[in-house]
């Protein structure tokens, strides 16, 4: 591969907030393409890859993680101020992540239960999406996001066009892959009909049900799916928990989940 380093490469940063670091692996797992990518884009801050310069102004900032502390609230403002184009990557950054479950509970009580010295923990009461704090130019959903999504976004930006938003339902790509529907043929409680595409219908193609890790699709009918899951014999509270999982902080899922959990608990 001939990798010619462009002279005026756009500068990019990868910032981490409250997260597991898994989405950043979508960069590191690019293999040979990682070399190509760094010839097209100059990474100036990417702590997981050993580059630390968080205050550098950049053209593209990738933000992983949710906003969960006072310091996060202030730091995301600095990131925004220093970035021309801000991309929130992964369920934590787009919906607050699994840790947003504390928004629906008494988070302080959990801390007191879990930690010997809760005084050292300075979490906010809530874990929230980046877009609730600053303007986000693009959201890449998924837990974690994958390399294909990142490449598509970067390539579009390099071409000077807005990346394409992917928000169809998982079913669409599941059927394009000719996967037999696991809900119809096996009675599995698949979340595909309300879940955003992008994963390549990974779980159904291995014979298991989608668990909504890419968040809500456009126009999700969570009520109709919830009723269907009841028809499959799943208890309302369990259905509620399927919505209140990785993307519990995404409004359509929060609402659908709370309705089931509270309505029947």
């Amino acid at each position, binding site marked *: 591969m001939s990798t010619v380093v462009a002279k005026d490469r756009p500068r990019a940063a990868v910032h981490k907030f409250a997260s597991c670091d898994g989405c950043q692996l979508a960069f590191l797992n690019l293999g040979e393409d990682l070399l*190509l990518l760094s010839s*097209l884009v100059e990474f100036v801050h990417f702590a997981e890859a050993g580059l630390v310069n968080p205050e550098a102004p950049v053209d593209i900032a990738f933000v992983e993680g949710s906003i969960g502390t006072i310091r996060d609230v202030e730091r995301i403002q600095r990131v925004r101020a220093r970035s021309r184009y801000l991309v929130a990557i992964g369920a934590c950054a787009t919906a607050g992540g699994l840790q947003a479950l504390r928004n629906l509970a008494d988070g302080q009580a959990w801390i007191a239960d879990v930690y010997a010295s809760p005084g050292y923990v300075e979490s906010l009461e809530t874990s929230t999406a980046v877009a609730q704090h600053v303007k986000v130019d693009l959201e890449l959903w998924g837990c974690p996001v994958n390399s294909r999504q990142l490449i598509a976004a970067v390539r579009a930006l390099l071409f000077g066009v807005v990346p394409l938003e992917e928000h169809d*339902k998982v*079913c669409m790509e599941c059927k*394009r892959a000719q996967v037999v529907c696991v809900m*119809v043929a096996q009675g599995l409680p698949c979340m595909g*009909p309300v879940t955003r595409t992008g994963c390549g219908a990974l779980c159904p193609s291995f014979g298991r049900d989608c668990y909504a890790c890419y968040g809500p699709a456009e*126009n999700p009918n969570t009520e*109709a799916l919830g009723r269907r899951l009841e028809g499959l014999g799943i208890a309302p509270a369990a259905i509620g928990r399927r919505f209140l999982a990785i993307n519990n902080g995404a409004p359509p899922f929060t609402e659908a989940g709370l309705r089931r959990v509270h309505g029947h608990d």
Partner: protein
Amino acid sequence: METGFLPRGRFQELLAVLHRSGYRCLGPQVRDGAIVYAAISVAEDLPRGARDHQAAGHYRIEQTASPRYFGWANGPQALKPLVFAPQEVLWRARRQADGGLELHQEMPPAERLAVIGVRACDLAALALQDRHFLGAAGDDPHYAARRAELFLVAVHCSDPSDVCFCVSTGDGPQASSGFDLALCELDSGFIVESGSDRGAVVAAELKLEAVGADARAAAARQADAARTRQHRSLPGRDLRAVLFANLEHPRWGEVAGRCLACGNCTSVCPTCFCHASVETPALDGGASVHARAWDSCFSQGHSYIHGLTVRSDTRTRYRQWLTHKLGSWHGQFGRSGCVGCGRCISWCPVGIDITEEAAAVCTGAADE
């Protein structure tokens, strides 16, 4: 044209003749809990004794002791994926050093494909897809290439499922045209008809036996039973006028409350043809792939034009699907777009029944 009888024990000979003629054979198999078309080389690959139980939103396979290979109604796939591929590269672009663009059409690999176990409804759907993709606007080259090399072995449907309604649409259960060979499966073997010159050539190589009177009588009884077994129907063949007179019917809003707008119905529908363009540039920017992928009128992108989504809610999307499938197809193709295969009923995750929705909108419209 009836050509003779192939005893069950000699079915392998049909596959052998097709293989010798250069065809790769696809046939029904049970995979992931459903009948799907997949490569077969020997008769033992066929789903002997398999039966499908279908209902709205429900599909299960039961294994029985029946010796039959084709004692099921259908699976989620018709012939559509074989001719109108779910995703297909149309052309590629390459950027040259001087900024020039090279644009090259990419064609699917040429392959002679024989499909065993095609249903009458699937043949009717294929005829409609032919009219669409090989129509007035010009032949779609990719569809045409895949279609030209297809050898179709139909099997008359002996066991329609609970959701089948091909009698109502006039498309089955007996295959009447569009096949190279058609088989009527009996416990003892197959009555073979040829429907094309190349079908006749294959049939001649099989050295078929004469069809006995018993076999002929059993075939007739079986066909009658398959017909009378169906209990679903559409409220009429041409619903265009009544559907378009009821565009503001409250049922559209009601069904939108149940519909997931997930596109499963349009994906399994053997006549749905909508597809989106998909551009995938290489990371280095030096090349790009232009493909098409099945789209659905249930997606937001389907009706999006810069800043405006024409059909922004499920009510208008479901209405678009039904009024097109059962209504405006008549103007476009001279018949309804529904062949009564029942797939959209079984494979709808929430079990919405097209015959029920059509009836609700088209009959007693004023009562709602």
